């Protein structure tokens, strides 16, 4: 029994080391090669939709609102709000505090081609702590707002 256990312990150590090096290697390769191309566009999505609600075009320096969010009449604004001067987009997230849906504020930067979630309400504030992103998708889970990058701008010339 004692011997059997120590054999298993050796296997365990081997397994953990092997897995760690393998997955560590994959992680480093992924980090190095996945975000080679510069992002041309960042799409902001809400909920399960695959239609971006707002598109940030880093090539032509503009922000395009594709459609409005469906919000009940108790909210006196029309979301998303795009503030070109501040470089922010304000959406209404799914996370509620005493029955009121909270806003998610996304800041974009044309020059650096980056996006950052600067304000959001959620238990752990994970997506605003993720910081500035230039290719990494930002996912705000309780709010169901996400930002994804694309390398080819969609047909914005029309």
């Amino acid at each position, binding site marked *: 029994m004692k011997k059997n256990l120590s054999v298993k312990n050796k296997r*365990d150590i081997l397994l953990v080391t092997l897995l760690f090096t393998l*997955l560590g290697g994959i992680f480093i390769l992924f980090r190095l090669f996945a975000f080679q191309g510069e992002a041309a566009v960042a799409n902001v999505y809400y909920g*399960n939709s695959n239609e971006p609600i707002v598109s940030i075009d880093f090539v032509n320096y503009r922000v395009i609102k594709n459609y409005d969010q469906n919000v009940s009449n108790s909210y006196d604004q029309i979301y998303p709000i795009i503030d070109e001067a501040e470089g922010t987009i304000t959406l209404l997230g799914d996370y509620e505090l005493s029955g009121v849906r909270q806003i998610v504020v996304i800041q974009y930067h044309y020059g650096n081609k980056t996006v950052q979630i600067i304000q959001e309400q959620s238990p752990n504030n*994970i997506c605003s702590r993720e910081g500035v992103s230039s290719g990494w998708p930002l*996912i705000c889970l309780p709010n*169901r707002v*996400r930002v994804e990058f694309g390398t080819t701008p969609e047909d914005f010339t029309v």
Partner: protein
Amino acid sequence: MTQMRKMTLLANFLAIAIVLNIIESAIPIIPVPGAKLGFANIVTLIILYVYSFKESFAITLLRVVLVALLSGKLLGITFYMSLSGAVFATLAMGFFKKLDFFGFVGVSTLGSVFHAIGQIIAGIFVIGSTAVLFYLPIMLLLSIPAGALTGIIAQRFYKIWQAWHNDIT
């Protein structure tokens, strides 16, 4: 008598698992959605070794549902992700324990890896985007030290448990 003791012990284990789960979800260590230490998994692992897969699976499911109920997230998006992760992890740990090739730490690490995979699969459906896959490499990498740590703690506990168990029977 043994049946009654088993029931009481399982109820205690469930309570411990719920508390561990709630505590660990309040400590966000790394800013990655869904990344946790997985201390609640210690209980799953211990029950797997003390009793069997059946009990371990039942307690894990109850833990996920009850924690969601207590934190008001039942049937929310994060609920499905943790449910899928927990089911994947428990199935994987049950399988690798049956295989009888690895010890505590190995089984726990593999369970942890499968937890990450299950979570990401649920995430793809729940969020409706494959963007979640970008988190898979970091989640897998982080799951290994977390799983190993969980395994070490469970192994320590199991040794103490065996000594204690032999004393009372």
